[in-house]
């Protein structure tokens, strides 16, 4: 019987149990951050337990960290969470990319960047966007705090094997269309729950031609379609990316030989297959309060079809029939684990060069990690943003969820490269509009969204 990549990785990690029941599977890597780990360490302490494999865990601070004056955290609980992670990792011997360290950044940006994320692995983190790491041909998913504690203590987790879904993505991406538009397009088309109960794999010529950073953007938002995880088969692009990174295997050629086995045999191995053609894809912009409420930039917002639509329109302050060009942008957030990587900053800087952001717009640029920030500064990208009137910040999750002081003011429309446009996500009554980095930076220049295929690129 043919098998998916997912089946092959899963089977290699089962310690006990049979398919259909919860199975005990081994976890190769757990990533930790300050918000969902304190109670897990506290639980270990209460029960006098140790971390079974400290070397298979890696922690950083990202959700709460300030993006200016990073050592001066005003919010008492934020500071406490950060100090607690510092203390816990020391006490339990877990590696930490702490405040101000060169390795610090959003947990889903630094895992790949440090070479911790590798093909064939099972990776967990107390965070739903762990799916990002699936881009390397691994099984990666988010877990709750009790499970974080369980993995710390046993390096394993009980899981029931999910069904598998293949999403065949094919065609040549038109100019001005990016990975973000593909995943937003799929979610807009299939709905925010299409992936519920499935482990998703993306494949096809469009995917094969993508860089690792683009692949991460797609896998990252799998959770927005309800899937627990998203993944992409490892190939030469993957191997080249991992090679030479700080924590990459030393015997890299042997590792690559081993990783090559993680391939889906053929489409018949999936429980379900979806087809997605990108040849005529347009840039997407979200109008509502979930990522499925998105339309191509040149299409009007939909009629009110149900109570959810009504509620979303009321919250966001827009009308059916309007288009994204009519959204008055007051705030721009550039960053997050979806689109806060170097390639995203490069694309934005290219468009921004020689321009200034529109009057009345506040634009926050928050690199996904310190390494991204350092690299961008080497390339002079920070200067382009600064001279265009943007605020160039220290790395972190920032206004993606507004746990630190970076919040979008109430009632203000924000063009955002992040992944969630839920009510209150970026600040109380903030109005989030998701789009690709190119679309967001163009919106910053014009003060409203534009069709970048016509007006910019």
């Amino acid at each position, binding site marked *: 019987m043919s098998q998916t990549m997912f089946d092959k990785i899963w089977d290699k990690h089962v*310690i006990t149990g049979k398919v259909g029941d919860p199975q005990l599977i081994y976890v190769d890597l757990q990533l930790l951050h300050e918000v969902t780990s304190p109670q897990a360490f506290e639980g270990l302490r209460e029960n006098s337990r140790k971390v079974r494999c400290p070397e298979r865990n890696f922690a950083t601070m990202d959700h709460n960290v300030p993006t200016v004056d990073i050592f001066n955290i005003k919010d008492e*609980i934020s500071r406490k969470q950060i100090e607690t992670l510092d203390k816990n990792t020391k006490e339990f011997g877990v590696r930490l990319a702490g405040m101000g360290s060169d390795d610090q950044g959003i947990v889903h940006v630094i895992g790949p960047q440090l070479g911790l994320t590798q093909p064939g692995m099972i990776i967990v983190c107390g965070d739903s966007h762990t799916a990002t790491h699936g881009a390397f041909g691994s099984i990666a998913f988010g877990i709750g705090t*009790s499970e974080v504690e*369980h993995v710390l203590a046993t390096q*394993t987790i009980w899981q029931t094997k999910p069904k598998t879904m293949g999403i065949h993505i094919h065609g040549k991406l038109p100019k001005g269309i990016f990975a973000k538009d593909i995943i937003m397009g799929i979610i807009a088309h299939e709905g925010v729950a299409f992936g519920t109960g499935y482990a998703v794999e993306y494949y096809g010529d469009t995917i094969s031609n993508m860089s690792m950073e683009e692949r991460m953007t797609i896998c990252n938002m799998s959770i927005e379609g309800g899937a627990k995880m998203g993944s992409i088969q490892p190939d030469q692009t993957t191997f080249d990316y991992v090679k030479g990174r700080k924590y990459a295997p030393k*015997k890299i050629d042997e590792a690559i030989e081993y990783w090559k086995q993680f391939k889906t045999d053929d489409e018949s191995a999936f429980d379900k297959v979806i087809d997605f053609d990108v040849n005529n894809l347009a840039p997407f912009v979200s109008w509502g309060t979930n990522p499925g409420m998105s339309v191509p930039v040149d299409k009007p917002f939909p009629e009110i079809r149900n109570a959810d639509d009504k509620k979303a329109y009321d919250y966001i302050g827009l009308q059916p029939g309007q288009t994204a060009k009519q959204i008055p942008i007051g705030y721009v957030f550039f960053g997050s684990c979806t689109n806060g990587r170097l390639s995203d900053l490069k694309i934005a800087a290219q468009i921004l060069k020689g321009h200034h952001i529109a009057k009345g717009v506040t634009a926050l640029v928050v690199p996904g990690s310190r390494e991204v920030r350092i690299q961008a500064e080497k390339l002079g990208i920070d200067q382009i943003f600064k001279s265009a009137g943007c605020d160039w910040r220290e790395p972190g999750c920032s206004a993606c969820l507004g746990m630190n002081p970076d919040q979008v003011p109430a009632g203000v429309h924000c063009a955002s490269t992040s992944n969630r446009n839920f009510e209150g996500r970026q600040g109380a009554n903030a109005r989030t509009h998701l789009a690709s980095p190119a679309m967001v930076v163009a919106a910053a220049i014009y003060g409203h969204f534009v069709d970048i295929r016509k007006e910019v690129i």
Partner: protein
Amino acid sequence: MKPITTITNTTIPLMKDNIDTDQLIPKQFLKNILKTGYGRNLFYDWRYLGNGRLNTDFILNDPKYKNASILITGDNFGCGSSREHAVWALKDYGFEVIIAGSYSDIFYMNSTKNGLLAITLPKSQREILARISSDENITVDLPNQEVRCINYKFNFEIDPLWKHKFVNGLDDIAITMEYDKEISQYEVTIPNFN
């Protein structure tokens, strides 16, 4: 976790359906680093008036019920977000047992992970328990799967796996540690490319 066999204590009735995790513990109280300390904000919006004063109309604030550790409630208890804090708050407040018509899946799973015994009884039986006076004890006997009070005896169902966990005071980690040998054997087979 502490083993749970027989719990004898007074009850507090809150016969409402669909009590969700936002009502159990509103989101402003989730920012914390401990599993303890949430009890004072359990049922926050019902327990306190806008000005932070106690709402004396709410049953939890009635001194008669101060020491009750068995909550009698409605259907679909613990629905809404997956926050484990809801269970932490109930436990921290002092609840040992919840008797509801049904539970949301995630809440139920979280209760099993944290040693909060959540059992299910039909409405007619819960209504009888809800009428019991505030100073009268009832007994929840887990090994025999019985709830007993002066005039009644009700049987309840529980998955043998969860029963085993509670009666022996095992948490998930303790159960997994029984597989320590298998885990160690597995670890030897992991390829090492360093």
